[in-house]
């Protein structure tokens, strides 16, 4: 959903290699580069387009800018004015305001908002451009990535690098507790979590195996979509949490795990666990060296593949491993999948240079060499099938876990909704009340939650039902 990635440490070398790789790459990877129609050939007059992106600082910015620079080298008549550290609200406001300050091409971290961009026509439907360029999305991108970049048949975005989520585990702490392999089922997860939880005599916590909470950083409910096979919505975008056995299973799983952790001798109160979690989270998710996983406050947690970059740069001595998140006990065959999301890129429908924009978007999303180099630089999973298979891709075991998750058929994503990620936010707020023990009847509460989500959606979309 929302994640600002951060990298310290030298990626300048990698960034520099991007330019070289890009120039070499344009001729070396033919399958994406066959363009029947060149949208903005070099014969056309020079033009400047505004590109807004969400990468915030340091090496990520450098890597992204290097990618753009390689594009400009290949297309000298298109100058790209880049603005970084942009959030999704800013993109929407910029497009709505129009004028010279608005973006022509936008790169957004908020995958959930694709539904809004498509349904309000803020981003251009790229179907025609893709056809003219002879790009078959089904053969170019993994299926879930296509799923989260389109809404009701409108392909208004394309993926630009992909995020996969899995389990990070602290090898040192696990071996100290006698655990040699990471858990593969939820029961094993619970057993391991309990073994890895250390308490003081009064029940307060010194170490937690796994935080049983949806409020912990990346453990938002959406990230468990593939684990519990969550459908979220019906085909006509009505919320279907009450009738989804997976959602009930997820809620009960959280409660069971939390109860087990609290009841383990010596008994703890919910407040003691909450205090410990808050204290661990206090410095912030991305503050260098102070993420609870980095400090050893928690032994296992859900996180995205980009955490590898932070860990490498901030705590290189930490011995850790990555694996797909455990499956439900009844569903072990689906082991290997995970939640997929990612950065998306689109063209503003207000842009006056949509052909030049498409030239840029096409380059950014399909040029294998630059995608691989960029993926290595920011430690994201590349977003095309060709790039996933590339031997130049970082072969580090912890990173490859996520590459495999991305290609796994069991991986899933959350559906787009016409009012963006609001249903995710509402669900998470409701789960906070569930965790606080304020829900007495689960099924009626979920029915109420469905009703509220539907009402919110209805209030936020055009009345003709788009």
């Amino acid at each position, binding site marked *: 959903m929302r994640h600002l990635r951060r990298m310290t440490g030298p990626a300048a070398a990698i960034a520099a290699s991007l330019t070289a790789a890009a120039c070499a790459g344009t001729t070396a990877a033919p399958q994406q580069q066959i363009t029947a129609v060149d949208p903005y050939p070099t014969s056309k007059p020079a033009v400047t387009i505004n590109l807004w992106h969400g990468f915030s*600082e340091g090496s990520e910015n450098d890597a992204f800018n290097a990618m753009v620079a390689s594009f400009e080298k290949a297309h000298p008549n298109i100058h790209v004015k880049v603005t970084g*550290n942009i959030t999704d609200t800013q993109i929407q406001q910029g497009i*709505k*305001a*129009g004028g010279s300050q608005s973006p022509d091409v936008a790169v957004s971290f908020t995958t959930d908002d694709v539904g809004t961009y498509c349904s309000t026509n803020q981003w251009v439907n790229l179907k025609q451009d893709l056809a003219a360029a002879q790009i078959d999305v089904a053969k170019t991108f993994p299926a879930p990535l296509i799923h989260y970049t389109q809404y009701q048949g409108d392909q208004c975005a394309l993926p630009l690098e992909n995020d996969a989520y899995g389990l990070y585990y602290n090898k040192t702490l696990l071996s100290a507790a006698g655990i040699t392999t990471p858990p593969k089922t939820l029961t094993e997860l619970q057993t391991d979590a309990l073994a890895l939880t250390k308490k003081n005599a009064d029940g307060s916590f010194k170490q937690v195996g796994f935080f049983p909470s949806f409020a912990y950083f990346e453990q938002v409910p959406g990230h468990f979509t593939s684990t519990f096979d969550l459908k979220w919505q019906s085909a006509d975008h009505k919320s279907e949490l009450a009738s989804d056995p997976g959602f009930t299973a997820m809620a009960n799983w959280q409660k069971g795990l939390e109860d087990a952790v609290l009841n383990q001798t010596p008994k703890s109160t919910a407040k003691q666990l909450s205090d410990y979690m808050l204290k661990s989270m206090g410095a912030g998710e991305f503050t*260098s*060296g102070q993420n609870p996983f980095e400090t050893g406050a928690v032994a296992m947690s859900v996180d995205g593949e980009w955490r590898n970059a932070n860990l490498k740069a901030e705590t290189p001595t930490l011995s850790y491993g990555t694996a797909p998140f455990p499956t439900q006990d009844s569903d072990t065959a689906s082991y290997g999948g995970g939640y997929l999301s990612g950065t998306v890129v689109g063209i503003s429908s207000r842009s006056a240079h949509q052909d030049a924009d498409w030239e840029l978007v096409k380059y950014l999303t399909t040029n294998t060499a630059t995608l691989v180099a960029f993926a290595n630089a920011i430690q994201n999973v590349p977003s095309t099938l060709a790039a996933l298979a590339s031997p130049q891709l970082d072969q580090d075991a912890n990173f490859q876990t996520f590459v495999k998750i991305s290609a796994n058929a069991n991986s899933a994503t959350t559906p787009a909704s016409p009012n963006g990620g609001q249903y995710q936010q509402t669900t998470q707020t409701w789960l906070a009340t569930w965790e606080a023990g304020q829900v007495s009847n689960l099924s009626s509460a979920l029915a109420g939650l469905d009703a509220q989500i539907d009402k919110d959606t209805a209030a936020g979309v055009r009345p003709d039902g788009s």
Partner: protein
Amino acid sequence: MAVLTPAPVLRSAGIDMAARSAARRRRALEWIAVHSLAIVAAVFFAGPFFFLLVTSVMPDNQALSGALWPSHWQWSNFRDVWDRAGFLTWYKNTLMYAVPVTVLTVVSSVPVAYALAKFKFRFRRLAMMLVVSAMMIPPQVTVMPMYILWTKQFGLGGTLWPLVVPTAFGDAYSIFLLRQFLLTVPKEYIDAAKVDGCGEIRTLLRVVVPMIRPAIAAVALFQFFYAWNDYFGPQVYVGANPGNWTLALGLETFHAAHHVDWNLMMAANLMVIAPIVVLFFFAQKVFVEGVTLTGVKG
């Protein structure tokens, strides 16, 4: 009378001594109680400043560790903050918001307050009611249509113009304050000026304005601080444009976007609050006078 004094004096002298020492004891207890409470209050008001100062020079990772005193004084934090963040830009933008707002408010509010205080006309009561009601309205009530107007009709989204332009037409609170103060200006001065042949504007500028200087200074200072501290206005209009962020927006972002630890966050806070405190010490008299004006005359 002289006959009666000796006896009562003698008697009251005796009672007086006892009463006086009891009163002395009571006064001493009161002194202790008052000053103890004052110390407690001082700790409450000064405490956060103390922690702000102390945390801003802590080394990394120490801020939330439970230690209350820095292990060593890391003065480089300030340099670090300055290098990382867009402080210069934020300062510049905040000044570009606060200074025009202050000047425009004063220039546009004084005539309005003068008319409301000194002229008698039929709609005076209604006009005052409008001023008072404008004072009461939360900015969130008018923001939506104004936001749409500014961004779509005038294309000024992402700039500070939507916040500055309205102050050229008078600020309700300033008008109210100035008007209350103007009511105390005796009419004779104004009449004298009129007799000397001054027109309305001349009277205002030459005679009235010099007399209400303290009120003008107070209004200017309050308006400046309102703009300096404003968060909602800039968030709505320039939240989409980091190049135009004011200090309020930049600071809030700083912790999140730069992934900094609290020590740098406090250093950043200190760098913003220090000039304000300095300004206050120079302008203390104006401040206190102005505050007294607002509260007591209202």
